[in-house]
């Protein structure tokens, strides 16, 4: 019973964090803020939801598989975000303040 209520809290928190991340992904103004919103909440939501599910298992093979999913997601998702942000930066994508700064220079000159 205690386990189930803890699991409920974890699942609600996980759902909340992933929703905030998705809203950030959709509404934020430029690419780098969106990466930030998506990747940070992705990690915490994954941890919370997977642990919420683990508390509902009988601690057998299913638990091991859930832990394996957690390990895979925790390794791959931030790595992918990092690599993406890095190649966006190398590809010449500018942040919003930088774009504003260049625009101001254009106006003054």
């Amino acid at each position, binding site marked *: 019973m205690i386990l189930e209520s803890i699991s409920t809290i974890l699942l609600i928190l996980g759902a909340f964090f992933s929703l905030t991340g998705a809203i950030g992904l959709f509404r934020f103004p430029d690419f780098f803020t969106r990466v930030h919103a998506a990747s940070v909440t992705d990690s915490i939501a994954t941890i919370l939801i997977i642990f919420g599910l683990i508390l509902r298992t009988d601690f057998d093979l299913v638990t091991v598989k859930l832990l394996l999913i957690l390990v895979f997601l925790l390794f*791959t998702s931030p790595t992918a975000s990092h690599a993406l942000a890095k190649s966006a930066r190398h590809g010449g994508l500018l942040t919003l303040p930088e774009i504003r700064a260049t625009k101001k220079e254009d106006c003054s000159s």
Partner: protein
Amino acid sequence: MTELIDLVLLGMLAITALRIIFLKDLFAVVMLFGIYSFLSALIFVNLDAVDVAFTEASVGAGISTVLMLGTLALTGRKEKTNNHTTFLPLLVVVITGAALIYGTLDMPPFGDPDNPAQQHVAPRYIQDSPQEIGLPNMVTSVLASYRGFDTLGETAVVFAAAIGVLSLLGLPKHEKAAIESGLKSHLVLRVVAKLIVPLTLLFALYVQFHGDYGPGGGFQAGVIAAAAIILYALVFGLPMATHVIQPTLLKALAAIGVLIYAGTGFASFFLGGNFLDYNVLASDPVAGQHIGIILIELGVGVTVFAAMLSIFYAFAGQAERANIQ
């Protein structure tokens, strides 16, 4: 609940398909096609077809996307302006679609247990296969035993497709890496890839030998193992990957897999049964079935692994050559 999820996912699929029609950037088209595959795999999970979902997620979404990106690297990513009139194709499509929808009205309702499709051979598979074959996964029983001859044909098709691609494109020559290619500047990626590749190979082995009890089997395991090597090749460069698993070895492996499959058939043939009748492989029929299924799943796995990886080598070799020139 199942119906609701189904409806939402089908809606997402429809929107994705519509967007693909109007996009001119082929790179975006391929990415959305990856989403399309993932979504359809999700629908398969929702409709209880877990083995199919496994295959679609690994083959449809993984290998297809990688191969299409390889082709785009060689042919360019922009679709030029279209001089077709849109009217005629639209007319053809609308008429065909209307005819098909008219046809669906005669079909039995979706999900009804009394449908004709559920009455014919399925009850026999569902009731008898756990005793006859001795495996919990009915899909594996049907795939490897009842319809084993069919699956031999499919394996031969995969083998033939690999030969076709190799004769069109040719394998990259096995040479020592003169210049290091791959994602050099991504240090984090290289470290993580080193961790992920062995885990993936281990997981492929699990899928191969756990396929009798859960979703999985030779087809999926072969593709997942190939995907691990593809990941290695993408991060560390093709020369490193061909150094680990040489193209000539792959050619031999593809043939060996088909031979293992056919050889199991001939073994049962010479032991007094029919072709691919595993009952005679051991004194106990159920034990014989188990041995036979493990052997042919191994053959399928080896062939699919070798075929998929050599197809990838062929495309990557072309892309690498084009990049150097």
